[in-house]
């Protein structure tokens, strides 16, 4: 009886020993920064995390990296843990730009500076926001799709609403299309930003619109989901433009699939710039409230140019 009661305790201690070996010890004195990412399941965030890690390593900052996995309750708890632990700064990619407000205010009340990366917060005091120019990226996507469609036809958006960066992208995309009166947006569906859901949503759109000209996927999973659906429906002439330029998307562009072009962001730069901005703040100077990180377009032409360079 006594020995069975001790079993969970033993397992726990073993697990803790294993867990604490896998990360540098928190006892290293110095600057500690708590990070709550939107997710660790996307390529983009893995790159952003890498940018954070390498820049933090250079400056000997300790990072505590956690991910909310799209659950605002979980993110709130992570921020509360950082406040209880009295970290020196917090980096967030909010699950919901406004819903994260109460948690940010708790950090504000504790005097811990808050920075956002990729996704902005609309409530609470944030020192600085580092992100791609998403509106500009959306406009680039619109110009690109219009170029491939020769300024005529119908397009659908595989969307993921309620995330500011995506809202900005889609707003920029619609703004950009406004300059091409020959192109109309006939569908705007929620693919939830993941490939399987995006494929189902895109399949429904293709089913409903046999003459659809183009698709804008708000990230690569959305664009690749649309590509899966286009294959299933045998729509060889569909023009898909994605966002993020992950390796699998770049590969699809290179192979000459319906995914013709991608807006490319530089998540590693977002990560490293965020750390630089924090260093500026620690040094006593006031960093700008918004730090934009440039975006670009890749298509088969730019990819082959890259190769020959």
């Amino acid at each position, binding site marked *: *009886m006594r020995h*069975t*009661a*001790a*079993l*969970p*305790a033993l*397992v*726990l*201690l073993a*697990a*803790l020993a*294993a*867990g*604490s070996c*896998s*990360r*540098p010890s*928190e006892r290293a004195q110095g600057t500690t920064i708590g990070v709550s990412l939107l997710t*660790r399941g996307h390529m983009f965030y893995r790159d952003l995390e890498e940018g954070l890690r390498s820049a933090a390593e250079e400056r000997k900052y*300790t990072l*505590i*990296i*956690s*991910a909310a996995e*799209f*659950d*605002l*309750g979980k993110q*709130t*708890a*992570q921020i*509360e*843990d950082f*406040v*209880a*632990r*009295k970290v020196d700064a917090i980096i967030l990619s909010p699950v*919901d730009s*406004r*819903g994260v*407000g*109460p948690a940010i205010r708790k950090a504000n009340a504790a005097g811990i500076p808050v920075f956002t990366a990729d996704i902005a917060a609309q409530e609470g005091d944030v020192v600085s926001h580092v992100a791609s120019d998403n509106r500009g990226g959306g406009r680039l996507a619109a110009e690109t799709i219009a170029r491939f469609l020769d300024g005529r036809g119908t397009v659908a958006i595989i969307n993921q*609403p*309620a995330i500011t960066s995506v809202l900005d992208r889609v707003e920029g995309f619609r703004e950009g299309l406004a300059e091409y009166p020959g192109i109309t947006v006939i569908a705007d569906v*929620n693919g939830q930003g993941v490939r399987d859901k995006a494929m189902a949503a895109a399949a429904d759109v293709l089913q409903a619109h046999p003459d659809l000209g183009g698709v804008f996927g708000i990230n690569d999973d959305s664009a690749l989901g649309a590509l899966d659906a286009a294959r299933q429906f045998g729509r060889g002439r569909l023009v898909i433009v994605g966002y993020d330029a992950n390796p699998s998307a770049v590969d699809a562009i290179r192979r000459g699939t319906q995914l013709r072009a991608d807006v490319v962001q530089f998540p590693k730069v977002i990560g490293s710039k965020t750390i630089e901005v924090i260093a500026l703040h620690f040094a006593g100077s006031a960093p700008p409230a918004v730090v934009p990180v440039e975006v670009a377009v890749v298509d088969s032409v730019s990819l082959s140019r890259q190769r020959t360079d």
Partner: protein
Amino acid sequence: MGGSTHGTSRRLPPETGIAAGLLAELVAFSLLSPHFLTGENILNVTLQISITAIIAAGMTFVILTGGIDLSVGSLLAFVGVTVAGMAKLPLPPAAATALALAAGLVLGALSGAFAGTLITRFRITPFIVTLALMTVWRGLAFIVTGGRPVWDLPEAFSVMGNGRFAGVPIPTLLMVATFALSWVVLERTRFGRHVLAVGGNAAAARLAGIPTGRVLVSVYALCGGLTALSGVLLASRLNSGQPNAGLMYELDVIAAVVVGGTSLNGGRGSVTGTFIGAMLIGVLRNGLNLLNVDSYVQQVVVGVVILAAVMADRLRRRD
């Protein structure tokens, strides 16, 4: 509930093993992290587990009858967005908040009673009924909000989830009150005895004249009502109604109940065990975060500890 007169080891309450596990966690984390054993952090842990723990109190009754409720995470979201919408009614903020709270609790209890009625009237297994309702409530949460969070709630609404009374977070106080009341209901009332009897042997309970149908509807209504209370608290804590809140919460809730020693076959278990189970999982998550353990590793550790706790319980009962 008379004490047994067998050997001394039999006199230990059934929660001893899991309580020892929790104690081991507390000692281990106190030694490993200087940030763990502070009053503020312990309050922080109780605040964080309050949402799932309150639901777990209700789930304990459901599982004691041999049932299960998979719909709690979705119901939490549906109630949360409904309540958030009501809090924005053009009334004085305090009145709107009170009205929203009352309506939310009624909505939750009615939803639970609906599930209970489907289970008893049509003899569909609880697993299927609540699995179906899980997607129904989630869908309704998206329908009433159009898929977007409900924002701009009055300041008065955020007090329940973010305020403190005598230095203790209000959700923590509500959680303690919920467990105290649940303990009284289960251990000291006729209804509590009926719940245990129905879970132990439904046929025998019916022969003994216990209204099994009414007992079942009541436990699902109770679970729904407590889920609604958590839904209101979460919406208040986040100062918004999130249609995708509570994803997979049913698993956290069921884990707390099972780690607490309540049998999934019904008839045996306690709310005290559930409370300790919820604390054990909450302390583990918090401690691993404070120790900067990688989030991938954390998921494995939490799963292993749940398994270990249930295994230890199983071994003890075989002794």
